[in-house]
Structures are given as C-alpha cells and as structure tokens.
C-alpha cells in the first residue's frame, strides 16, 4: 500500500452556514510493504485513527492518493454488526462476513471461533443474554480467526478477564508476527517495539519520522518528556 501526500480535513458545523475546518492528516506519504508490521505512534488526536480509516478505504481523502496493491484490507473491529436479538452463532456468521470472509469460510471456522471464545452452549443463545465480557470474547474470537491480506489494528490486542486476556494477547501477537501485513496503532511502546518492523510517528497530522522501531520510539519518548516538562 502506498500513500502519496494524503490530506484529510474534517468539517464541523458551528451554525447553519459556518463550518470549522480541522486538518487530521496533512500531506502524509509512506509505503507499507508486504508482510511487514508497521507500528503507528503519536499523541492523542495526531491522526492515527484517521490514518487507519483512510487505509481501510472507509474515509476518502481530500488531497493526494492512496494506492492499494492488495485486494482486501480490513480494520480489526470487535462485535462488528452485532444484533443483540440474534444468537452468538448468527452474529459470528454475519460479523465474519462483514470482516470480509465468504459465508462458507466463516462456517468452516465457526467451531474454532466458538472454542476460542469459551462460550460453549451459550453460543446458541441471543447475545442480549450475554455479559459484556462474553460479548467481548465472542467479538475478539471472530476478529482473530478471520483472514485479511492487510490487517489494521487500533488498540485492540486483547479483551476479557485475566485468563482470557493472556490467551487473547498471545494469539493476537502470534497472528501479527506471522507473515501477515499489519498496521498497528497503540499507545503501548512496549508492544509497538516488540511487534513492529518499522515505526511511523505521526505528529499533528504529519509524518515526523518513519524507520527503525528502537530509534523512532526513543526519539518519540524524549520528545514527549520534553513537552510534558514545559
């Protein structure tokens, strides 16, 4: 995937005819190579989430181009398109399909999903009867088991109680470190350093640096320390 001078502006309405403009991404250019994991770091509101939306072709750009050399990019979203009246099984099917899989593929993976989610017989109950934790476990299991050429992850590496959290994190880490192309947004420098091949630092919508994880992260942390001192 390639981004060339990508600019995204938001418009928020102040009154009937007046709008405020705010530039979320400002002339961003970089390339994502096949099989790599690109970490994205930056302070709150620097445009990280907007960047993922652009890569997933959910948001259009105001200027510049995005070139996809792949067929399928998906944002890792938990509980995508869940309907609380439907059973866990039905929700897993539709959610998996929205994440980009064909129905047959989801059906084949359904047993793995149910097993990973540890929902057992609850899978055939409507999810309105689930606890928040159970819903999160189901959502996570679906997202984990679905395949995508490029996976975009925004801060969701694990969910659930202590036991499940550990299992989920291990599985997700394994998925990221495999040959999968990943763009990972996280506030945890530890995770970013551990999982990324390269790191992109976004600052106020612009690319500050991109390159070796250790180097970029140390620049970023010293920069953040300096600004918090002021």
């Amino acid at each position: 995937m390639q981004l060339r001078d990508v600019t995204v502006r938001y418009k928020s309405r102040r009154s009937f005819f007046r709008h405020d403009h705010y530039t979320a991404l400002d002339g961003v250019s970089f390339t994502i190579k096949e099989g790599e994991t690109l970490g994205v770091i930056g302070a709150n509101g620097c445009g990280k989430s907007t960047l993922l939306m652009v890569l997933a072709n959910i948001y259009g750009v105001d200027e510049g181009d995005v070139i996809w050399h792949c067929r399928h990019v998906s944002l890792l979203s938990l509980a995508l398109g869940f309907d609380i009246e439907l059973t866990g099984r039905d929700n897993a099917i539709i959610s998996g399909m929205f994440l980009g899989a064909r129905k047959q593929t989801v059906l084949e993976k359904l047993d793995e999903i149910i097993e990973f989610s540890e929902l057992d017989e609850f899978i055939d109950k409507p999810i309105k009867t689930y606890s928040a934790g159970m819903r999160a476990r189901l959502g996570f299991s679906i997202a984990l088991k679905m395949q995508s050429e490029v996976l975009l992850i925004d801060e969701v590496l694990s969910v659930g109680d202590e036991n499940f959290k550990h299992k989920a994190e291990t599985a997700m880490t394994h998925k990221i470190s495999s040959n999968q192309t990943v763009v990972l947004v996280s506030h945890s420098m530890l995770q970013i350093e551990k999982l990324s091949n390269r790191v992109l630092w976004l600052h106020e919508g612009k690319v500050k640096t991109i390159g070796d994880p250790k180097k970029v992260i140390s620049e970023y942390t010293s920069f953040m320390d300096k600004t918090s001192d002021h």
Partner: protein
Amino acid sequence: MFISKAHLLEVFFTKLVFNLKSEASKTHLSYVWWLLEPALMVAVLYFVFAVFLDTGVPNFVVFLVCGKIPFLWFSKGIVHSSNSIMEGRGLITQVSIPKPFFPMVVVFQDAFKQTVVFIFMFAFIIFYGMDVSWVWLNVIFVILTQFLLICAIALLVAAITPYFPDFNLLISTAMMALMLGSGVFYSYKDMLLPEHQQLFLMNPVANLINNYRMILMDNMPPDWTSLGSICLGSIALIVVMMRYFKKTDTTYARLIAQ
C-alpha cells in the same frame, strides 16, 4: 473492502434473513404479527366503514383496503429507509461498504413482509365477495412497479438524510400529504374536477392505487402506459442514485462520524 459483487450479495441476503429473524424475535407472537398487523387494520376499517359509518357506497371497505395497504407499504418503506444510513453508523465507520446496502436491506425486508400482507389482502377481497378472474394476475406487475418505485425513492431519501438530519422529520408530514393526495380514502373520479384528474394521476402512488383498484375491483387490466412510465422513471432514478453513491461512497462515513 469487499472482494467481489457475489460476496456483497451474499452478505446482503444473510443480513436480510437475520434482520427478519431478529425482528420476529422481539415480540412474543413473532412471525404471527406479519399477518396480525394487516388483519387488525382491515378489521378496524371494516367495523368503522362497513358497520358503523356505512356510507352506502358499494364495496367501500374493499376500496379502502386496495388503497391503504399499498400506500402503507410505500410509506413504511420510505420512512424506514430514510434513516437507514445513519443507523448503519456502526458498520459504515468500521468497514468499506457500498452505502445503498443499508436502504436496500430495509426495502427488501419490508417487501418480504409485504408479500404476506398481499396474500392476506387478496384473501380478504375474495372473502368479501368480489369476483376473481385471471385479470387478477396482472396485479403482479403493479406490485413489481411499486417495488421499483420504493427502491428508487428509498435510495433518494437515504442519500439526503445524512446531510440534513432535519429532513427525516419532514418525511412523516410528506407521507401524510401524500396519503391525502393519493386517493386512499376517496375516488378521484367522484371528487376531483375533470381537469385535475390527469394531474392527480401524475402522482405515481395515486396512479398505482388506481391500478390496484382497476384490477381487483373492476376486473380490468391495468393501465400499461402508466405502469411502464413509472417503471422507467424508477429505473432511471435508481441508476442515477447508484452512480451518485459510487461517486460519493467515502464521504458518508466522514459525514456520519462527525
């Protein structure tokens, strides 16, 4: 990003079936309501207009049923789809999906339930003692024309509402005006001046209702010229809207998220 059109269709029909399932599971009588709702409405019309307020107009209840049921299908379809893109917020901000998906799911969902309603309506009219003939089969073309019209208008209102959320409030008023202007409760031949009748029939909903009545009450074939014009107009609007959605696809996610 969806891999292919076939995949999108697969998601569409799965979502459609699941929505119907979900809707039914919200009530105790579930699927029975699809039949019960029109049955109750017809019962009310029957008691009010055939028993208490018997106006002496022959078959007035059938006349009302032939107007009210198709009209309700139209108005429900439009009201439901007008907010469909906004309600799809959860999906639109998470996946790249063509936006006509949302109004179309709603329209197909309503159409599916409507087939049950129509079967009930025909049964009621036969039970009431109207003559059935092969001419009745023509009603299929009127139904299909109405379906195309609903698709076209649904796409249009669904496209507008995210830009002007206030538009949604206008729709219920517009539907009230449309009901009064479509001759649900009166016969245009008796109530309107001859020079206004042509204008009245330019309203596609009024025209369709007139066709339902011609077939089911008078055993006459439909007005093919009108049906053809409504079909062509609807298809043209559908094509225009599809192109519009294709061009503006990614703007909706940003519009909704802001």
